[in-house]
């Protein structure tokens, strides 16, 4: 096993990986940019390296700086987390070239799976179903428009190097096509440095269901069942659960087998996720493979009892996967909510500021993955996800109730968050019934306003009590003027400085 591992990430995922390493007796090194110097991931790591400039390209995305830092502290391996460099083949290669083990698959597999077109071709050859579309190399506007018209509408324009909904557009009519392609290309260029896009038939109201896999370096591949990730806004997941209320034992087995076949077809190693789109008739189509740890991995851990990060470390250090497929089963139900600094009643725009108060809910089977604390400053440099809240219970209904309780006791003051919104989604009758698709938010919460009902009486009472306990200087002066009989009328100004 490694003696020292560098975590090339920030926020909750860096914290989660550092803790796993520390439990295993591995020394940890955090990296950080100037604005993160007092962040939790830096505080809990055994060592840390300052990368300076907070611009991602100068810090968490700077391959040369990170490799140099890893060498300077003699880290044997680098865990990339998710996002940033996690799916960058050049980074994986640079690690290997420097004699540092990259905790993830090989650069060749990352490159192959990062190229959505090649990935689909390869996966299709393993007899896994894929969606019809244009995945050609010709990227000029007129070709794309021509191919788009051929596929028909609605249509999806997606960055070849994409992920997380960036560089992605749904086109409902021919008139929107040109603008959508241009805009997706620009967004892809700036987010991934590659403006190549593909077009695909858009399946109306599909579910997004993915399969977690683990593969060691000796050819053993297992799957750890599904995660239902249909609840999304702006094509980014916000609520995930397992087991999926839609997946039957038969479908689960078929998808699990397909995922293992896909991983075996490319000689995959370490943890990975195969994302499928599932239509209302239980047909599933390969969408993409994420060659890294997923944000929503805690729900799989909660229901299978497997620690995915620890297995990533073991596999990378050359250990054999000792978990057998037949010994795995799903126990109970788990649910995860992503807590974002964003305003759901204003197009989910990110909000920045200082967290004046953070109090997280604690209780049986409630897991908090956070990278925030009171006085933490949410900066505009990075993704606005603040934390993840995961609960597990005997069944789905109990998980939902537990999550509603936990969200109701989740205090984050200082920035606008999506907490109330998440609660409303969980309380929705269609969600409770399990009738969820990737269009759920659009269907039921399109013009949702956080404050439709105004300030409740309890809030007004609480505010009045608070302000009465914390009076302001001018209030006393004002009161003095208002009431000639006040005792304050008879004291001098020097008494006013409370």
């Amino acid at each position: 096993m490694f003696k020292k591992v560098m975590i090339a990430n920030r926020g909750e995922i860096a914290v989660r990986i550092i803790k796993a390493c520390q439990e295993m007796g591995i020394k940890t090194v955090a990296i950080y940019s100037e604005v993160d110097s007092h962040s939790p991931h830096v505080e809990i790591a055994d060592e840390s390296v300052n990368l300076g400039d907070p611009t991602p390209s100068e810090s968490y995305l700077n391959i040369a700086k990170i490799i140099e830092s890893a060498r300077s502290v003699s880290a044997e391996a680098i865990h990339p987390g998710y996002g940033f460099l996690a799916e960058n083949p050049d980074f994986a290669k640079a690690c290997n070239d420097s004699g540092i083990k990259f905790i993830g698959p090989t650069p060749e597999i990352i490159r192959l799976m990062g190229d959505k077109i090649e990935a689909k071709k390869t996966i299709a050859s393993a007899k896994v179903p894929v969606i019809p579309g244009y995945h050609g190399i010709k990227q000029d506007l007129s070709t794309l428009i021509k191919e788009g018209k051929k596929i028909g509408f609605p249509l999806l324009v997606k960055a070849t190097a994409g992920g997380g909904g960036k560089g992605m557009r749904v086109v409902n009519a021919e008139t929107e096509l040109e603008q959508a392609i241009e805009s997706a290309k620009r967004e892809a260029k700036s987010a991934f440095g590659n403006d190549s896009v593909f077009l695909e038939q858009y399946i109306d109201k599909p579910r997004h269901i993915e399969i977690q896999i683990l593969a060691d370096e000796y050819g053993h591949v297992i799957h750890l069942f599904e995660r239902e990730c249909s609840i999304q806004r702006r094509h980014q997941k916000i609520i995930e659960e397992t087991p999926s209320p839609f997946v039957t034992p038969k479908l689960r087995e078929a998808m699990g087998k397909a995922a293992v076949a896909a991983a075996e077809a490319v000689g995959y190693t370490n943890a990975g996720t195969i994302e499928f789109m599932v239509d209302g008739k239980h047909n599933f189509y390969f969408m993409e493979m994420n060659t890294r740890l997923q944000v929503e991995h805690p729900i799989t851990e909660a229901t299978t009892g497997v620690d995915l990060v620890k297995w990533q470390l073991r596999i990378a250090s050359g250990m054999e996967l000792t978990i057998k497929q037949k010994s795995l089963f799903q126990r109970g139900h788990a649910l995860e909510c992503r807590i974002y600094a964003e305003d759901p009643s204003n197009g989910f725009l990110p909000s920045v500021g200082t967290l004046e108060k953070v109090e997280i809910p604690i209780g049986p089977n409630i897991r908090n993955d956070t990278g925030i604390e009171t006085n933490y400053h949410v900066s505009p440099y990075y993704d606005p996800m603040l934390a993840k809240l995961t609960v597990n219970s005997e069944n789905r209904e109990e998980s939902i109730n537990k999550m509603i309780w936990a969200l109701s006791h989740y205090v984050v003051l200082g920035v606008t968050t999506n907490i109330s919104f998440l609660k409303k989604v969980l309380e929705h009758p269609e969600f409770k019934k399990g009738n969820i698709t990737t269009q759920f938010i659009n269907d039921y919460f399109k013009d949702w306003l956080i404050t439709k009902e105004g300030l409740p009486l309890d809030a007004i009472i609480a505010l009045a009590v608070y302000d009465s306990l914390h009076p302001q200087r001018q209030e006393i002066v004002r009161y003095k003027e208002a009431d000639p009989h006040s005792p304050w009328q008879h004291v001098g100004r020097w008494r006013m400085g409370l």
Partner: protein
Amino acid sequence: MSIFINYEHDTHVYNVTVERRDTKFFITYNNNEYTVNAIEVKPGQLSIQLGDRVIKSVISQGEDSKFVFIDGNIYKVKRIELTGRKKTEKKEGDLNSPISGTVVTIKVKQGHQVKKDDVILVIEAMKMEYLIRAPYNGEVKKVYFKEKDQIEIGQLTAEIEKEEE
């Protein structure tokens, strides 16, 4: 002593009077009086007894507004002076930037005729794009930014003279 407070939340203003005697508070709002017993358990954390129920709330004081956590919901509230307060009038359309970021593309030039919903410019923030669209048909009078400029939340991006109907 009693104090008079106006809370602004969303577009509404709430007028409240509160008088404190030790741990007892007499609150008047909307012609009703509420007598409560309250203590501040921890800084900002209140436990308020109203009749037979307890209101639990956490309040934080930001730079210009307060955040009130109550029953799992959070409300951003501002204290305001009613005198001299500017009436918040709803302007038609919005050419203000919804976010701080970088201007990546400008689609129009001064003097251009634009139609409602035409893209005026594109702002990128946190690797996402936000489109500023024309709120109405009209003529572009001025574009306040050029490509690669930094833009702050709320800044006016452009001026468009509304076409006469």
